């Protein structure tokens, strides 16, 4: 099992039991299981129209999930991504008509700024990350509500041409899904081929050892939070482009979905293990569940209950039960 603790999953231990093989690859089995169950219930689940819909739902969630992945690899958590996405969605929706496409780099900068603030509080002042981001959540949620005036506002019909391109169908799937796939690829490259990626995993596996080995833990953690907030901001921009309006409550349940998909992918919440590719499979599972339930006519009010249970099960399967003396709070 030791070998599977490295960031990528390519080192397969010799003579592993079928059980550890199952646990290691459970993310694929769960995705296949979910998709086939919904396919049996409703064969049109895998029709082109339905797949286009599912990929359109997946697109904004992917950057958010991949972003929070980086924070989870370091062993921290960011509870604020939903609120950051809401704020980004509101700002984009309100200003895209005036600023045009410059809104995208502006929102990226917004994400960088938020990430630096959160990351510095966690890494420099050494505050617990969940409390910092819980506070950040309340700040950005309030900002989203105040800026939008409490309700969602549509982008004017005349300005719709500015945002319609994102929903265009390219090679059979929405353009925004291809962009998200590009972001997953970028995350994968950061994880596997850069010093930053290696440092992030090293901190998650053993922060003290990483520091002694010369990793700049303060800078690396801040960078992880920055990537996370940027991912959340991209997600928010995509929601604004997708819904063609500014919705202040869009991110409220998205944290749950993003974190469930990362957990389903097998990322350890204690840090040090995970991959963007596995997160992609997790997002497929989560969106299949929500879309499939929707198509099967299940009341959307069930969503919170279902995702709560999915999250617990996913985390339970992947938790480190082997190490008994580890104190987990």
């Amino acid at each position: 099992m030791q070998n599977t603790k490295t960031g990528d999953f390519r080192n397969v231990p010799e003579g592993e039991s079928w059980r550890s093989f199952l646990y290691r690859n459970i993310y694929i089995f769960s995705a296949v299981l979910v998709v086939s169950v919904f396919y049996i219930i409703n064969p049109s689940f895998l029709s082109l129209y339905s797949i286009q819909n599912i990929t359109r739902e997946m697109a904004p969630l992917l950057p958010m999930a991949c972003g929070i992945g980086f924070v989870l690899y370091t062993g921290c958590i960011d509870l604020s991504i939903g609120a950051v996405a809401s704020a980004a969605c509101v700002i984009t929706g309100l200003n895209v008509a005036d600023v045009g496409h410059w809104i995208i780099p502006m929102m990226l900068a917004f994400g960088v700024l938020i990430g630096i603030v959160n990351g510095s509080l966690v890494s420099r002042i050494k505050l617990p990350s969940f409390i910092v981001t819980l506070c950040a959540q309340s700040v950005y949620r309030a900002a989203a509500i105040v800026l939008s005036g409490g309700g969602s506002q549509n982008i004017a019909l005349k300005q719709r041409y500015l945002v319609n391109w994102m929903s265009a169908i390219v090679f059979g799937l929405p353009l925004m899904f291809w962009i998200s796939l590009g972001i997953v690829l970028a995350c994968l490259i950061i994880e596997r081929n850069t010093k930053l990626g290696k440092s992030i995993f090293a901190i998650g596996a053993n922060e003290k050892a990483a520091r002694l080995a010369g990793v700049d833990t303060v800078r690396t953690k801040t960078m992880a939070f920055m990537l996370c907030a940027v991912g959340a901001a991209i997600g928010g921009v995509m929601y604004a482009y997708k819904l063609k309006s500014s919705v202040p409550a869009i991110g409220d349940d998205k944290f749950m979905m993003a974190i469930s998909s990362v957990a389903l992918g097998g990322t350890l919440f204690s840090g040090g293990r995970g991959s963007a590719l596995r997160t992609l499979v997790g997002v497929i599972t989560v969106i299949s569940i929500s879309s499939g339930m929707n198509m099967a006519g299940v009341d959307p009010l069930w969503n919170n209950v279902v995702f709560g249970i999915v999250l617990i099960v996913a985390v339970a399967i992947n938790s480190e039960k082997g190490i008994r003396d580890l104190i987990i709070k």
Partner: protein
Amino acid sequence: MKTFDRQAMTVAEEFVSKVEREARSSLIRVYAPMILLVVMTIGFSIYDSHFFSMKNLSNILGQMAVPLTLATGLTFVLLIGRIDLSVEGVMGLVGSAIALLVVNSRNSNDWGIWGVIVPIIAGLLFGLITGILHVRLRIATFIITYATGTIAAGIAVLLYHSQPATAKAQWIIDASRTTFLNIPLITWIAVAFFAVCCVILNYTAFGRAVYAIGDNEAAARASGINVSKVTIQVFVLSSFAASLAGVLALIRLKLGQVSLGTDQMFPCITALVVGGTSLAGGKGGMLQTMVGTLIYMELLNFLTIIQVPADYKKAILGVIIIVAVVLTLTRGRKTIAK
């Protein structure tokens, strides 16, 4: 030999000065919030003479019931270095369920006292499940309580299906109108619960075990404390506090919906941290909880008096909690909650 002596002295002196430093900092941690409370009260009274009027004070105390109850339960959780994010959901679930089971506007149920007991047991179950999952499956508490809280809120919405019920039972209407010494009954209930928890925390083996676990979990386990059992008990206690808060909130507002609990937990954590309870565990107590809750209530009341919009209030609280955590954080603790 002399050098050795001198070295030994230096080490001893170092130790003494370290202990003194720690004692000083803990003194600051205990008394700074009280001084802040007094200064705030005087300052607000000077700013607005209505602040210290009997009417406003009973207003503050009337609104204090729910935060005080939740904060009392959360004190135990924070003392063992854990966190419980599920209280909002459990509160909403218990409140909604009671509104549907007693005489109400939506259906013809009339379960009487069982209409309160059954939802509270359901709330306790959530604490029990959270505790067991945390201890057995070794999942970090902030993630598991986030999940159980979402499930509880989801079940609450499913129960009333987007059309919350208004509780019309006579005892609820009576309870909301009853006052004693100009202070509402629900505040007295909260204060009674607080007093019971004071005794539990300070005069029982369970209370001692809570402090021991928060201070050093490995040492507590080594000295024979059943850490798993105490942890589960703490989560059950916290969910009982959340359930009780749900009952009190329902008595106050009478509309059983999930938003009874929304935005209740965050102010409580603010209150606890401002009062001097450490998020890393082991430091804090009921006195700090009371002081912190009073500070929070006065601040909230003052922000209302000077007419700050509700959304800004939340953002201000978020900033305050960060500052308070920075000030109360013990540096160099290794087992800090992630």
